Protein backbone atom coordinates (compact mmCIF):
# COMPACT_ATOMS: atom_id res chain seq x y z
CA UNK A 1 0.00 0.00 0.00
CA UNK A 2 1.35 3.39 -1.02
CA UNK A 3 1.06 6.26 1.43
CA UNK A 4 1.32 9.88 0.26
CA UNK A 5 1.52 12.92 2.53
CA UNK A 6 0.88 16.60 1.87
CA UNK A 7 1.51 20.01 3.43
CA UNK A 8 2.44 19.95 7.12
CA UNK A 9 1.70 16.23 7.41
CA UNK A 10 4.41 15.65 4.79
CA UNK A 11 6.79 18.08 6.49
CA UNK A 12 6.33 16.57 9.95
CA UNK A 13 6.65 12.97 8.77
CA UNK A 14 9.64 13.99 6.70
CA UNK A 15 8.78 12.17 3.49
CA UNK A 16 6.33 12.71 0.62
CA UNK A 17 5.51 9.04 0.03
CA UNK A 18 6.36 5.51 1.06
CA UNK A 19 5.17 1.95 0.62
CA UNK A 20 4.03 0.11 3.74
CA UNK A 21 2.51 -3.25 4.68
CA UNK A 22 0.27 -2.68 7.67
CA UNK A 23 -0.03 -5.70 9.95
CA UNK A 24 -3.20 -7.77 10.36
CA UNK A 25 -5.93 -5.98 12.30
CA UNK A 26 -5.32 -2.64 10.59
CA UNK A 27 -8.69 -2.57 8.85
CA UNK A 28 -9.83 1.07 8.75
CA UNK A 29 -8.28 4.49 8.29
CA UNK A 30 -8.46 4.97 12.07
CA UNK A 31 -6.51 1.73 12.55
CA UNK A 32 -3.94 2.87 10.00
CA UNK A 33 -3.42 6.24 11.71
CA UNK A 34 -2.98 4.48 15.06
CA UNK A 35 -0.46 2.02 13.62
CA UNK A 36 1.51 4.78 11.85
CA UNK A 37 1.86 6.67 15.15
CA UNK A 38 3.73 3.66 16.59
CA UNK A 39 6.36 3.99 13.84
CA UNK A 40 8.30 6.82 15.46
CA UNK A 41 8.21 10.26 16.95
CA UNK A 42 7.81 12.09 13.61
CA UNK A 43 4.69 10.07 12.79
CA UNK A 44 3.32 10.45 16.31
CA UNK A 45 3.80 14.22 16.09
CA UNK A 46 2.29 14.51 12.61
CA UNK A 47 -0.77 12.44 13.47
CA UNK A 48 -1.22 13.41 17.13
CA UNK A 49 -4.62 15.01 16.38
CA UNK A 50 -6.32 12.46 14.13
CA UNK A 51 -9.40 14.70 13.80
CA UNK A 52 -7.21 17.24 11.95
CA UNK A 53 -6.13 14.66 9.35
CA UNK A 54 -8.10 14.33 6.11
CA UNK A 55 -7.89 11.17 4.05
CA UNK A 56 -8.27 10.17 0.42
CA UNK A 57 -8.37 6.55 -0.68
CA UNK A 58 -7.37 6.11 -4.32
CA UNK A 59 -8.09 9.82 -4.94
CA UNK A 60 -11.48 9.80 -3.23
CA UNK A 61 -12.22 11.61 0.04
CA UNK A 62 -12.99 9.12 2.82
CA UNK A 63 -14.03 9.10 6.47
CA UNK A 64 -11.83 7.65 9.15
CA UNK A 65 -14.08 4.63 9.62
CA UNK A 66 -13.69 3.53 6.00
CA UNK A 67 -12.06 0.09 5.46
CA UNK A 68 -8.73 0.19 3.61
CA UNK A 69 -8.74 -3.36 2.24
CA UNK A 70 -7.87 -3.32 -1.47
CA UNK A 71 -6.84 0.33 -1.47
CA UNK A 72 -3.69 1.08 -3.45
CA UNK A 73 -2.98 4.69 -2.45
CA UNK A 74 -3.80 6.34 0.87
CA UNK A 75 -3.28 10.10 1.10
CA UNK A 76 -3.04 11.91 4.44
CA UNK A 77 -3.20 15.70 4.61
CA UNK A 78 -4.51 18.67 6.62
CA UNK A 79 -7.82 20.37 5.77
CA UNK A 80 -7.53 21.83 2.28
CA UNK A 81 -6.97 25.55 1.65
CA UNK A 82 -7.20 25.88 -2.11
CA UNK A 83 -9.50 28.05 -4.16
Amino acid at each position, binding site marked *: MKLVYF*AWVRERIGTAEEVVEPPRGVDTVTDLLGWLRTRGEAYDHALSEPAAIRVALDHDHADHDTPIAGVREVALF*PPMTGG
Partner: protein
Amino acid sequence: MPQIRVAIVSEPLDITAEIERVTAGRGDIGAVVTFTGLCRDEDGRLEALELEHYPGMAETEVRRIAEQAAKRWEISDVTVLHRHGKVKPGETIVLVVTASKHRHAAFESAEFIMDFLKTHAPFWKKEHTAAGAVAWVGAKASDDEAEERWNNAD
Protein backbone atom coordinates in the same frame (compact mmCIF):
# COMPACT_ATOMS: atom_id res chain seq x y z
CA MET B 1 -24.41 18.11 -22.45
CA PRO B 2 -22.47 20.97 -20.89
CA GLN B 3 -18.88 21.59 -21.95
CA ILE B 4 -16.55 21.12 -18.99
CA ARG B 5 -12.97 22.35 -18.98
CA VAL B 6 -10.72 21.77 -15.97
CA ALA B 7 -7.00 22.41 -15.67
CA ILE B 8 -4.40 22.64 -12.93
CA VAL B 9 -1.69 24.94 -14.22
CA SER B 10 1.52 26.59 -13.12
CA GLU B 11 1.29 29.61 -15.45
CA PRO B 12 -0.72 32.82 -14.93
CA LEU B 13 -4.35 32.52 -16.06
CA ASP B 14 -5.83 34.40 -19.01
CA ILE B 15 -9.41 35.28 -18.10
CA THR B 16 -10.14 37.01 -21.41
CA ALA B 17 -9.21 33.98 -23.45
CA GLU B 18 -11.44 31.80 -21.28
CA ILE B 19 -14.50 34.04 -21.61
CA GLU B 20 -13.98 34.27 -25.35
CA ARG B 21 -13.64 30.52 -25.67
CA VAL B 22 -16.99 30.10 -23.90
CA THR B 23 -19.00 32.70 -25.81
CA ALA B 24 -17.42 32.78 -29.28
CA GLY B 25 -19.91 31.95 -31.99
CA ARG B 26 -22.72 30.98 -29.61
CA GLY B 27 -26.14 32.56 -29.64
CA ASP B 28 -27.71 30.52 -26.84
CA ILE B 29 -25.79 31.95 -23.87
CA GLY B 30 -27.50 34.76 -22.01
CA ALA B 31 -25.37 34.92 -18.88
CA VAL B 32 -21.71 34.42 -18.08
CA VAL B 33 -20.41 34.63 -14.53
CA THR B 34 -16.72 34.63 -13.75
CA PHE B 35 -15.05 34.29 -10.40
CA THR B 36 -11.42 35.27 -10.05
CA GLY B 37 -9.66 34.42 -6.81
CA LEU B 38 -6.57 36.58 -6.36
CA CYS B 39 -3.55 36.37 -4.13
CA ARG B 40 -3.75 39.23 -1.60
CA ASP B 41 -0.65 40.93 -0.24
CA GLU B 42 -1.99 41.01 3.36
CA ASP B 43 -1.16 44.69 3.83
CA GLY B 44 2.22 44.22 2.17
CA ARG B 45 3.35 41.41 4.48
CA LEU B 46 3.02 38.68 1.87
CA GLU B 47 5.71 38.05 -0.70
CA ALA B 48 4.19 34.95 -2.31
CA LEU B 49 1.83 32.05 -1.79
CA GLU B 50 3.07 28.57 -2.52
CA LEU B 51 0.32 26.22 -3.61
CA GLU B 52 0.98 22.55 -2.99
CA HIS B 53 -1.40 20.11 -4.66
CA TYR B 54 -2.03 16.39 -4.96
CA PRO B 55 -1.22 15.82 -8.63
CA GLY B 56 -3.03 12.51 -8.97
CA MET B 57 -6.23 13.75 -7.35
CA ALA B 58 -6.53 17.51 -7.86
CA GLU B 59 -7.80 17.46 -11.42
CA THR B 60 -10.13 14.51 -10.77
CA GLU B 61 -11.65 16.22 -7.76
CA VAL B 62 -12.06 19.61 -9.45
CA ARG B 63 -13.71 17.89 -12.42
CA ARG B 64 -16.06 16.05 -10.06
CA ILE B 65 -17.13 19.37 -8.50
CA ALA B 66 -17.67 20.92 -11.95
CA GLU B 67 -19.76 17.90 -12.99
CA GLN B 68 -21.89 18.17 -9.85
CA ALA B 69 -22.59 21.80 -10.72
CA ALA B 70 -23.45 20.86 -14.30
CA LYS B 71 -25.92 18.28 -13.03
CA ARG B 72 -27.55 20.61 -10.52
CA TRP B 73 -27.93 23.72 -12.74
CA GLU B 74 -28.82 24.24 -16.39
CA ILE B 75 -25.42 25.45 -17.52
CA SER B 76 -24.01 25.10 -21.00
CA ASP B 77 -20.36 25.61 -20.16
CA VAL B 78 -18.18 25.47 -17.08
CA THR B 79 -14.47 26.20 -16.78
CA VAL B 80 -12.35 25.77 -13.66
CA LEU B 81 -8.66 26.62 -13.72
CA HIS B 82 -6.49 26.42 -10.61
CA ARG B 83 -2.88 27.48 -10.16
CA HIS B 84 -0.23 25.48 -8.36
CA GLY B 85 3.28 26.50 -7.38
CA LYS B 86 4.32 30.03 -6.44
CA VAL B 87 1.80 32.80 -6.89
CA LYS B 88 2.60 36.50 -6.36
CA PRO B 89 0.18 39.04 -4.81
CA GLY B 90 -2.26 40.28 -7.44
CA GLU B 91 -2.01 37.09 -9.49
CA THR B 92 -4.95 34.79 -10.03
CA ILE B 93 -5.16 31.58 -7.98
CA VAL B 94 -8.43 30.26 -9.35
CA LEU B 95 -10.75 31.12 -12.22
CA VAL B 96 -14.30 29.81 -12.55
CA VAL B 97 -16.46 30.62 -15.59
CA THR B 98 -20.05 29.43 -15.90
CA ALA B 99 -22.39 30.12 -18.80
CA SER B 100 -26.12 29.63 -18.98
CA LYS B 101 -29.30 30.86 -20.57
CA HIS B 102 -30.27 32.19 -17.15
CA ARG B 103 -28.37 34.39 -14.76
CA HIS B 104 -29.27 32.63 -11.51
CA ALA B 105 -27.97 29.28 -12.80
CA ALA B 106 -24.71 30.99 -13.79
CA PHE B 107 -24.33 32.76 -10.43
CA GLU B 108 -25.26 29.84 -8.22
CA SER B 109 -23.22 27.22 -10.03
CA ALA B 110 -20.10 29.42 -9.86
CA GLU B 111 -20.58 30.04 -6.13
CA PHE B 112 -21.23 26.33 -5.53
CA ILE B 113 -18.03 25.40 -7.35
CA MET B 114 -15.98 27.88 -5.29
CA ASP B 115 -17.46 26.67 -1.99
CA PHE B 116 -16.65 23.04 -2.84
CA LEU B 117 -13.19 23.86 -4.21
CA LYS B 118 -12.31 25.45 -0.88
CA THR B 119 -13.27 22.37 1.12
CA HIS B 120 -12.69 19.49 -1.34
CA ALA B 121 -9.94 20.30 -3.81
CA PRO B 122 -6.57 18.96 -2.60
CA PHE B 123 -4.56 22.20 -2.50
CA TRP B 124 -2.68 23.71 0.43
CA LYS B 125 -1.45 27.27 0.72
CA LYS B 126 1.82 28.24 2.34
CA GLU B 127 2.57 31.91 2.99
CA HIS B 128 6.00 33.36 2.36
CA THR B 129 6.22 36.74 4.07
CA ALA B 130 8.46 39.61 3.05
CA ALA B 131 10.19 39.17 6.42
CA GLY B 132 11.20 35.64 5.41
CA ALA B 133 8.73 33.70 7.55
CA VAL B 134 6.94 30.66 6.16
CA ALA B 135 3.60 29.31 7.43
CA TRP B 136 0.79 27.03 6.29
CA VAL B 137 -2.56 28.77 5.90
CA GLY B 138 -5.19 27.28 8.20
CA ALA B 139 -8.58 26.10 6.95
CA LYS B 140 -11.51 28.35 7.84
CA ALA B 141 -14.65 27.21 9.63
CA SER B 142 -16.54 29.71 7.46
CA ASP B 143 -15.59 27.65 4.39
CA ASP B 144 -17.10 24.52 5.90
CA GLU B 145 -20.28 26.44 6.67
CA ALA B 146 -20.38 27.82 3.14
CA GLU B 147 -20.21 24.32 1.73
CA GLU B 148 -22.81 23.04 4.20
CA ARG B 149 -25.41 25.51 2.84
CA TRP B 150 -25.60 23.59 -0.44
CA ASN B 151 -26.40 20.33 1.34
CA ASN B 152 -29.42 21.89 3.05
CA ALA B 153 -30.73 23.97 0.14
CA ASP B 154 -33.41 22.63 -2.19
